[in-house]
């Protein structure tokens, strides 16, 4: 029991004294997950808009597949990206395996389905009357999509924040693609996994607290946005 209490006390010290390793890991986690979130948004929001506004065969099936991929296990996303980036894979020549760039790709793959799904939900929450008004005002098809995405922006932003939450908290893909290399690809989740297994509870707890604080900030931001 005392070890745990000691762990918490030391963790507090690490955070308060802005321990260089803690800061470095946190910063790397934020940079990788934020970049993945931005790239995923740029892909998922337009795709969500197209799926919502276009009628095509198999639309219902596609949406079902996307919804299934919300729960895509992180290790499966990791495996998929590993196969793509490994030396023998189709993107092996890029040399991105065990790099932060590879981790960004993996997290992007992981959260794109979730964000497409959230964009679809957000757009279906825009009243039909608003779409009619936009069309009636003479909007071309691209203008209809951009205007309605703007109308649904707070709901869509909710999806983006959820995506960020999933990206920063996943461990499987980060471990498989990043390799948890100290000072290079080690992020909050992989560091916690490693340090805990090595008995370095203080660092694990410190990083865990930081991860929880980030999760809380994300949840609060989501709540505030949905209140608007």
């Amino acid at each position, binding site marked *: 029991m005392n070890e745990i209490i000691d762990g918490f006390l030391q963790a507090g010290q690490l955070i308060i004294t802005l321990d260089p390793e803690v800061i470095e890991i946190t910063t790397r986690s934020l940079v990788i997950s934020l970049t993945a979130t931005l790239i995923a948004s740029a892909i998922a929001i337009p795709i969500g808009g197209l799926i919502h506004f276009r009628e095509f065969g198999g639309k219902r099936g596609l949406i079902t597949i996307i919804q299934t991929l919300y729960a895509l296990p992180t290790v499966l996303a990791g495996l998929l990206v590993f196969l793509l980036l490994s030396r023998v894979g189709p993107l092996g020549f890029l040399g991105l395996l065990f790099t932060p760039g590879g981790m960004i790709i993996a997290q992007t793959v992981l959260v794109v389905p979730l964000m497409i799904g959230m964009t679809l939900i957000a757009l279906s929450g825009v*009243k039909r*009357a*608003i779409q*009619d*008004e*936009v*069309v*009636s*005002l*003479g*909007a*071309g*098809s691209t*203008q209809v999509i951009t*205007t309605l995405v*703007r*109308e649904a*922006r707070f709901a869509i932003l909710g999806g983006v924040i959820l995506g960020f939450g999933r990206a920063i908290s996943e461990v499987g893909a980060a471990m498989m693609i990043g390799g948890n290399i100290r000072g290079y690809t080690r992020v909050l989740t992989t560091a916690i996994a490693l340090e805990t297994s090595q008995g370095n509870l203080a660092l694990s707890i410190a990083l865990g607290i930081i991860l929880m604080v980030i999760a809380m900030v994300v949840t609060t931001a989501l709540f505030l946005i949905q209140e608007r």
Partner: protein
Amino acid sequence: MIEFSHVDMRFGEKEVLRDLSFTIEKGEIFTVIGPSGTGKTTVLRLIDLLQNPSAGTISIDGRETTIPERERVALRRRMAMVFQKPIAFRGSVAENISLGLAFRGLPREERQARVTEALGLVGLPGYGDRKAATLSGGELQRVAIARALVTRPEILLLDEPTANLDPVSTGKIEQLILSINERFRTTIVISTHDMVQGQRMANRIAVILNRTIGQIGDSHDIFYHPSTPEVARMVGVENILEGWVRSNENGLALVDVEGISIAATCPYPPGTGVTVFLRPEDIVFLLEKDGRSSARNELPGTVSRVTPMGAMVKVRVEAGVRFTAVITRRSCEEMGIQNGKDLFVAFKATALHVVPREKERPATGPGA
């Protein structure tokens, strides 16, 4: 010019409009009237190319509207529609109003100038910076009208444009619509359930009943010469009597209605079964028989119900046949009209509109 040719509209199994054929001329104010849920809005949406007809064709300036979406956008940009429930987009009033202009790629200065002008037109000067979501229903309705006007449409479609407004605002909006039509020769199509508004505004009126056009004509045609009992009821004709022509001398007929003789001008020969329409405002009451009055019909009767309606009073009289009249409250008081009062119901032979009773009535009346 907008032309509907045998247009049907169905939503799945549900038939909304059936066999609509009519033409709206350039520069005219055309009103579509009818009870709620009869498809008036759908007519406007079809014109605005928000929907495609299930059958039949719609053409604008001689051009059919079943064209690729890109061309439909170009055609739609010549029109503007104000919906019954106004929408507030996120952002300021000015952003809301300039949306259609932004879609058309107008430069910012031009947009600002037009927004300022439109806000003045709808009586909301200085509202540009307010948040649209904070406006009242009436203000929002005027913003929606401004949003349509800034695009300077050739065709303006208004779906119940004053349904959410108080009488003063309604008057202002009606004036505005009339002045736009005069100044810019804008073709205006209005849907309304308000008969009197239809009468005030329109060059021509189409009455939609049972999913199809009951009658098209100018307001005099519609209000005084309804072609069917259904149209008559819709436009406030409260006295709809069935009878047959007993005699006819040079167009002055005696019509037998349940044993009562009524003089009416009509061309139909004796023996013709007819329906007789009489507007409640065309009836006057006399306290005693007055052979000198210009009314050819003077029938004795007894008041059975008096219903106040603001400055007017609706009076029901049993005179062998039941009549309903609308008179001013002042006349009602002066004549001491109340339940059980005996009086004479008087109306001119020319005030009656007589149509032959047929199984198949003509779909459209005069002026169609």
